[in-house]
């Protein structure tokens, strides 16, 4: 699956635009991004990572955080994670579609 970004075009440099979301999903699993952020980018609890998807923050910020993270996240340097894999991972995260709104999920009605 090739992922093409149309919406928000101005945020992304050329190298990101035609990256492979399917390859990115494999890289996301291989480099174990899911351990903190969840397989669907939903984020984790108890000090694990924040949600990444849907609507990840712009590519430059994403790349900056992965390479030189703030606070508790380990840095994924280029020697361990190539620019290509990182761009693919971003493509995967950006491809994750929003789920139903909380109000539309009966199981999330707690009152």
């Amino acid at each position, binding site marked *: 699956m090739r992922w093409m970004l149309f919406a928000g075009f101005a945020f992304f440099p050329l190298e990101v635009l035609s990256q492979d979301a399917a390859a990115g999903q494999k890289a996301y699993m291989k480099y174990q991004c899911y351990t*903190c952020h969840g397989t669907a980018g*939903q984020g984790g609890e108890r000090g694990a990572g924040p949600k990444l998807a849907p609507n990840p923050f712009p590519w430059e910020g994403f790349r900056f955080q992965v390479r030189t993270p703030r606070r*508790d996240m380990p840095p994924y340097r280029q020697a361990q994670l190539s620019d290509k894999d990182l761009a693919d991972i971003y493509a995967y995260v950006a491809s994750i579609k929003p789920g139903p709104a909380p109000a539309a999920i009966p199981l999330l009605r707690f009152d």
Partner: protein
Amino acid sequence: MSDDGIDRRTFLKGAAAIGGTLAAANVAAQEAKGAPAAKEAPAPAAKVIARPGSDFMVDVIKSTGIEFIASNPASSFRSLHESIVNYGGNWKPEFLTCMHEESSVAMAHGYAKAAGKPMAILAHGSVGLQHAAMAVYNAWCDRVPVVMFAGNFMDAAQRRPGVEWYHCVQDPAALLRDFVKWDDQPASLQHFAESTIRAYRLATTPPMEPVLIVADGMLQEHPVEDEAKLSIPKLVPAAAPQGEANALRVAAKLLAGAENPLIIADRAVRSQDGLRRMVELAEALNAPVADLGSRMNFPTTHYLCRSEDRPALVREADAILFLEVGDPWGQLNSISDPHHEYRRLAKPDVKLVHLTLSDQMVKANYQDMQRFQPVDLAIVGDVEATLPALVEAVKREISVPRRAVLAARTEQLRAQNRAMKERTRSLAANGFDASPVSTARLSAELWNVLKAEQWCLADSRNVTWSQRLWPATEHYNFLGHSGAAGVGQIAPAAVGAALANRDKGIVTAVLQPDGDLMYAPGILWTAAHHKIPILMLMHNNRAYHQEVMHLQKMAGLHNRRMDTAKIGTAIEAPNIDYAKLAQSQGVWAEGPILNPADIGPALKRALAVVKKGEPALVDVVSQGR
């Protein structure tokens, strides 16, 4: 922890055990004289001990009202075991068969939090307590009473050669003394009676903690010599210590005058009355409450419950009341991991009050006291016992005009509460249909079957969504966590809690981590054997997930491969089939479930089993966190 060999089993068929010990001593003496032993030794079967010391020990234990005694059977307390079963009728206390001493203590830990009173455990003084140690430490850190008895043969001349020597120890409590409140090794039955009653009272007086009494083997097995000289002291609970009145007045004045007061509660209350007093205090101040969740401290349905907003509230607060908070420094500051970057969250001039008994129960070796946090006012007292006086002091400090000022905050506080809940629900909705199943989905599915019941979630820390999402109003709803995060506590503690709730009509559930269950999965058999109804929903992320993340941090720090973090941390290849594990021990079970849509129907079937009085397990393959 049985050490019985062929000789023991053969012997027990024909003789009282004590007779054998004495006979063996006679044989040794006769052999030393060169006499033919077999002809002159008394026949073992002829000796009967109608009233062993262990019967009296049972009388003592019964006098405390202890209803259950959990144990893995062992020879150093064989006489006491037999007395519990036959002399005591196996009723109050009833003997619970556990498959690990750690399970016995953790079960007692969970039971005490749900029952509001301790149960007992029995263990070998040496190898049994070695197994039990981590669970005792959990109970210590969680400030929970457990009454422990350990078998031991102090008189070396009476010990059988071989294994019995390995299982005896000069000072059984030495191993645990850093994390029990008190211990004793009684030298007589009267001493046993007095020390057991003392131990029970110490354990149940705040700060509550585990205690240990050694039941000497010969004291158990020898006959009671002079019954008329024995007496069991009356057990009278001690009143819990209350904070000093003047200090409460100063605290009340400080809180009543604050513009942004905050209450942070950790191990604050233990009853519905305590919960009600917490509401009264918060409403009097109109102050938000951040419940750290070691106990059920505040109703999640109340508009002042703002646990999710704690960091923001700490930043804004000009006065904070800590109520038995284990780590006050950690509420005001943070240190990043792995770079140890320090960050202060709270205002530098925030006024701090801590009502706590932590200074009364501190020892040197283990570091559960956490980093020292200076406060403006430290009050020694039990929160639950002090709340009535504190509430009254606060009300006295609030004038009518001030009350109007505080009341004017209500609408904003309600709006902030609604916003917090909406944010949490939005987070829970992310990845709701994912497989592996999200932890938020696990929590929501469990709530869906529990919501029509009186319910108790035996561990409310390992997956926090429940505390964040579920409407909880009763003090027994959330039981907190293990205390020291010693892995292997959640499953047995949940079974202990379920035992306490069994006759109250409260359905006990647990979101059961896979790694935790595998420490001592025999607790499933204990639940099935003793018909303890518990609903276990597996949070099966197939890893020691916390450690996966630690490995990733270290690899990043060392600029090394990031894709190897599952080596040594994953629980896969092969995957463990928890349904089969449970079924093999007589527990109804289904799974593994990968499709989140299958969870609800499985949980309904499981709940039907639980409501019939039996345990049930549903295995779900879940996200890491």
